[in-house]
């Protein structure tokens, strides 16, 4: 019979083959899903993964969107990846994203209509701080009381969503908005607007920050003591303790980094592409980033590529929604499937199949 045998070392080949295979399997399963929905599977997949980049009619709109959508995903996923490596599970990035956005928008709206060069930098600080502080709640509870950070960080997403609604309907509501919910649009507020840096590319300060974060993340993970401690804690918690890694400190730093980066992502989003504090300006980047982090193998370069791919699925999903009537939810299901397949295929990174004759199960 076929048995799984543990590899002495995780396979380097499968580490990177697994995500590719998972994407292929997702395309096949997605095709089946589209066929069940009564859509032409090939046309749907082509429209989601090919047309945004290479179709002449769509590319002009879609290519810049790629950077716009990938930047928050990469920023958040990069932050999460450090914690995930060390078995610190911050799954409330969505909440930290919201709080970062609200903190930044709050600063801008409180100073409206200020015209000063330092407003935008101040918003960046506020955004990072908002996400950071929100992540410090699970960090404090875990280090002080040993409370499970998974449940706390997740619960705080719902609290943040309620807080966001309260802000959109209350203190941050646009006084000139004729009673409609939602704040002033920061896109019409020059000093606070996260505008495109080069017209028609989608490049904004968030994209720059995300790329910078990838480079710094790469250096920290591979060349810095902190990166070593993270990797050590993930692979051998006991050895890490003997090596003098302060577990509590690691929890605080990992949650802090992921919170601050998620808050930054929220800041760049609220001041640019989304523009307005509304009841539902968050669209789940914080959760999709979890998929991005795993698909990118918790590795900065991998996350960069995975973020671009996930952004593509968002944009292509929109195209397919209008072009073929593929429901938006189908894209969410597709993204969920991808993580499933990845986790399943990943067995071959640590195990190999062996044929063992004559063994009873």
């Amino acid at each position, binding site marked *: 019979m076929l048995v799984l045998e543990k590899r002495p070392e995780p396979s380097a080949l499968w580490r990177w083959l697994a995500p590719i295979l998972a994407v292929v399997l997702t395309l096949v399963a997605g095709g089946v899903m589209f066929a069940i929905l009564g859509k032409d599977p090939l046309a749907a997949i082509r429209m989601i993964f090919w047309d945004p980049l290479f179709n002449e009619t769509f590319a002009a709109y879609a290519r810049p969107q790629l950077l716009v959508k990938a930047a928050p995903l990469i920023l958040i996923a990069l932050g999460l990846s450090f914690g995930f490596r060390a078995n610190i599970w911050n799954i409330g990035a969505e909440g930290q994203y919201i709080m970062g956005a609200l903190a930044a928008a709050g600063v801008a709206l409180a100073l409206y209509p200020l015209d000063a060069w330092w407003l935008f930098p101040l918003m960046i600080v506020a955004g990072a701080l908002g996400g950071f502080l929100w992540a410090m709640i699970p960090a404090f509870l875990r280090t002080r009381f040993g409370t499970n950070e998974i449940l706390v960080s997740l619960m*705080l997403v719902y609290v943040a969503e309620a807080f966001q609604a309260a802000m959109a309907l209350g203190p941050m509501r646009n006084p000139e908005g004729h009673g409609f919910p939602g704040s002033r649009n920061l896109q019409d507020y020059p000093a606070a607007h996260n505008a495109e840096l080069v017209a028609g590319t989608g490049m904004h300060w968030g994209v720059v920050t995300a790329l910078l974060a990838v480079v710094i993340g790469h250096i920290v993970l591979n060349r810095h003591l902190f990166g070593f401690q993270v990797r050590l804690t993930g692979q051998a918690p006991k050895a890490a303790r003997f090596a003098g890694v302060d577990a509590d400190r690691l929890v605080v730093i990992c949650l802090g980094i992921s919170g601050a980066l998620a808050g930054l992502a929220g800041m760049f989003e609220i001041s640019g592409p989304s523009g307005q504090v509304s009841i539902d300006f968050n669209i789940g980047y914080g959760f999709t980033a979890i998929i991005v982090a795993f698909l990118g193998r918790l590795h900065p370069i991998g996350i960069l590529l995975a973020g671009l791919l996930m952004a593509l699925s968002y944009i292509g999903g929109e195209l397919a929604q209008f072009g073929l009537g593929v429901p938006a939810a189908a894209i969410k299901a597709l993204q969920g499937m991808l993580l499933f397949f990845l986790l399943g295929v990943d067995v071959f990174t640590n195990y190999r199949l062996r044929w063992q004759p004559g063994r009873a199960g």
Partner: protein
Amino acid sequence: MDLSAIDPLVLLASLMVAATPIMLAGIGELVVEKSGVLNLGVEGMMITGAICGFAVAVETGSPALGFLAAAAGGAVLALLFGILTQFLLSNQVATGLALTLFGLGLSALIGQSYIGIKPPHFDQLDIPLLKDLPVLGLVLFRHDVIVYLALGLVVGVWWFLGRSRAGLVLRAIGENHDAAHALGYKVMRVRMLAIVFGGALAGLGGAYISLVRVPQWTEGMTAGAGWIALALVVFASWRPLRLALGAWLFGGITVLQLNLQAAGVAIPIQYLSMSPYIATILVLAFLSSRSGRAALDAPASLGKPFHASS
């Protein structure tokens, strides 16, 4: 604001209803965790159950069939989790998250043609004689069959885990899977059964939200109930009867804040609706602060992968 509009008896009666979904999902997850598996996908299985149950109930006109379909839907999703974590040895935390993300997407996909529809009415049991008891009648004996099923399952699981041989085997596997394997117990088989059982109950709990509590279908309508159910298991220190108590407590908070909203308290609704989540966090923090008691109560093999090398 008119607090006298809140009738404490009606409040208690609706508390029983509000507690049912998390009690069902929680007791299922408790069995799963007792077998040493941490399935964080409760939310995904609940929302899948919610839409499967809703769709089948609407199509057939029978809520009973709907609940069956919900249990089946939750179980299928749980089976997927089982295959990944038990046979393909994937990380349980990550796989549970995947289950939730996938369940949310899948349910939204199935549910798009069911938005704005009313499901068939699910009758109350109205137990004769008992329902006419002065106070208890309204609070305890005028509910639908699922409320009693949930309570029955809590007692059943309590008996199974504490008083039956099979329950002892399940707990042994949860405490030390290597030792249990060496004794000849089928670790994977028992865990798969537990996982599927947990999925079915999460599905039931989800359908109770979409068919009875709300009752209609909206995207993401479980709104964290699955996560609260997970917290409930920790709250209960993995003890079934205490889980029922916790479910009533959380049900009570939910009902109370809804009633305060309706009574027009001067606090914006958004802040009131935070309360069940904040309460969960506070309770978790309080429990874990008692010098690591919670950690001691947890099954020793919880969340650890099992691979029999011989």
